């Protein structure tokens, strides 16, 4: 089978959107490849060309994994169930601070527990708090949840900033152990360390990258399974028309609560990973703008689609890292304008939210066949093949 025919057969069963996204990914990857190859060339010749180092790509991907988890979590809430959660960063922060305070050497509690305790407590805490927020608001119209979660996000930030006995306040918490150096993951060290050396990257970053990508993959598979399950169908009905779901005898309140809590837990897991990846947490990281990076990712990717969430999450990471990477470049062109980088990013996110909702509310890769039970899809493909 030649390469061309193999490519043809891969593309044959794809929708227009999928083909377009595949082309975009291929184009983007080839640009990255060129930039990486240019690295040694520039080092040798000193030409003023933009380059990418492999260690930069690896550290970006290790952070990207966290964004993908957050996007998948919000997709359960907004994409599956139509719930407007504006406290993504708060649940992320709860996970991160739980991990940091239980395991960090710089924690005021001096517990230095194993990271698994942090994970369990983070999940329980996020579930309890998500439940508490959902309790009064999920019975009401969707906008009440939006307002309550925006407030909740601010309160969590104020508490973490002010309760120094609990969270070390503005000083921050540091000294968390890395995840992969601890049992039960330490067996991977002999395998991954040579790879890291080969790539010229920090071994810790390579470990985290492999860990977070596996974690994201497991969450992705789990959510995809849930989406086609009866549970996922009920949530889609609620999102489309809650009265219909209620008329069919479904306890819509309880279903929305489950989706909300599940999303919050995934966000807390993302935060827990971040605490052990960056190994330093301050309350300043709980900026509400981070919540809306995730919102842009979900809507841009295609609300309700897990693949879309992954695409959207990557896109937002590229935008964020891109603005950081080429900040000097922009500065050198627009030297006559002193533009604050934080303000520029705020404007960019604001405009993206406005434009995506207006121009492409269904996103890049809206859910289509993802909603169909896979076996039914194969059956139909088989019937068409016979005809």
């Amino acid at each position, binding site marked *: 089978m030649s390469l061309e025919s193999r490519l043809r057969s891969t593309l044959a069963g794809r929708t227009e959107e999928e083909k377009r996204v595949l082309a975009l990914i291929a184009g983007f990857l080839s640009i990255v490849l060129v930039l990486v190859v240019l690295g040694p060339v520039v080092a040798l010749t000193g030409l003023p060309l933009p380059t990418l180092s492999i260690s930069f790509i690896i550290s970006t991907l290790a952070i990207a994994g966290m964004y993908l988890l957050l996007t998948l979590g919000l997709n359960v809430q907004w994409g599956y169930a*139509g719930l*407007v959660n*504006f406290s993504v960063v708060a649940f992320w922060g709860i996970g991160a601070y739980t991990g940091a305070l239980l395991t960090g050497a710089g924690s005021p509690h001096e517990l230095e527990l194993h990271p698994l305790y942090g994970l369990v407590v983070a999940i329980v805490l996020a579930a309890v708090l998500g439940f508490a927020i959902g*309790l*009064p*608001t999920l*019975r*009401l119209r*969707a*906008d*009440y949840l*939006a*307002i*309550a979660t*925006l*407030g*909740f996000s*601010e*309160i969590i930030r*104020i*508490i973490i*900033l*002010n309760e120094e006995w609990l969270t070390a306040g503005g000083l921050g918490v540091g000294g968390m152990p890395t995840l992969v150096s601890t049992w039960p993951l330490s067996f991977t060290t002999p395998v991954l360390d040579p790879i890291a050396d080969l790539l010229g990257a920090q071994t810790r970053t390579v470990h985290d990258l492999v860990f977070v990508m596996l974690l994201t993959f497991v969450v992705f598979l789990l959510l995809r399974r849930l989406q086609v399950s009866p549970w996922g169908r009920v949530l889609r009905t609620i999102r489309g028309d809650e009265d219909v779901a209620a008329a069919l005898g479904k306890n819509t309140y309880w279903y929305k609560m489950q989706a909300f809590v599940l999303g919050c837990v995934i966000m807390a897991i993302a935060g827990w990973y971040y605490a052990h990846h960056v190994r330093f947490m301050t309350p300043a990281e709980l900026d509400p*703008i981070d919540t*809306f990076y995730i*919102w842009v990712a979900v*809507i841009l990717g295609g609300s309700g689609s897990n693949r879309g969430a992954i695409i959207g999450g990557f896109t937002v990471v590229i935008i964020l890292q891109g603005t950081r990477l080429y900040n000097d470049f922009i500065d050198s062109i627009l030297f006559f304008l002193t*533009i*604050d980088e*934080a*303000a*520029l990013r*705020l*404007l960019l*996110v*604001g*405009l*993206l*939210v*406005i434009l995506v*909702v*207006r121009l492409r*509310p269904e996103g890049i890769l809206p859910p289509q066949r993802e909603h169909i039970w896979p076996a039914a899809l194969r059956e139909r493909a088989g019937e068409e093949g016979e005809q």
Partner: protein
Amino acid sequence: MVDQLPAAFVEWIVSNGQLFASGLVFSSIIILGSIGLALVYAIGDFPSFAHGDLMTVGAYTAVVVNVILGLHLAIGFVVAMVVTAAVALGTDKLVFRPLEGRAIELLITSIGVAFAYRALIHMGFGPSSRSYDVGGRGGIEWIRETFGVTVTPRGATIVLTTLVLVTALHLVLQYTTLGRMMRATAENKELARISGIRTQRVLAAMWLIGGALAGAGGVFLGLELVIRPRLGFSILVVLFAAVILGGIGSVYGAMLGGFVIGMAHELTPMIGAAVGAVPLLPAFGSEYDAAVAFVIMILILIVKPTGIIGGKTSA
């Protein structure tokens, strides 16, 4: 026994008089902000998360007039009301109206608008904090002598101007054709349109009024606090608490809610001490002023989600 109670109450008020006086000033600002938010909620049918930053627009407009051009703040105040109203109307035409009333899309878009306002202000004026070039920081002598509390001319101006604006809005809503059209549209948009009301014009008037009041509130907020790009966004939660307490979409509810929440916001140290007196509960200070507003909001959502004045009845 019974006649001792009012005396104790008066004594309690007097002993905490300073907190109540500053609460009154802050309440006025929250009332101005939450009325506009309630108007949008009633007629536009979505919670505008950009309303706090609309107040920031007003505060910075007055900075331009008062600090940069060097004119009196009173002129800055009027200009701020006009400019903020124009910005609100322009945003509606450009951003909100094309979404044709899809509430959730409008809600999410309004966050984008909020960020865009704040980012542009941040770019134009920088992140540093500013203050108006106006006096009136010292206490008014006769008030201090009579009531034993310090009220600055600034505070007195804020309370009196708010009274005038709120009264004017009340008269417009109750006694003019525009007011009747607004109330009808808030009650039932379809029915209003069938009866020949040009709801688009009513919407425009609503944005102008809400924007102007937000501009006024923004200038007053800038008088009381330091002016920075995050000024308005940081009190958004307080505004929503006021609107939900009063009942979503009810202008009179927003006035009442704004008063209560504004007071609670300023009385936070007292509330914190009172909560601390209860066993097992921690005492807290003024850093939790937004949290107090939030907790009141959640309690209202549990007990009476329609708010005190309830539903979209009196707009």
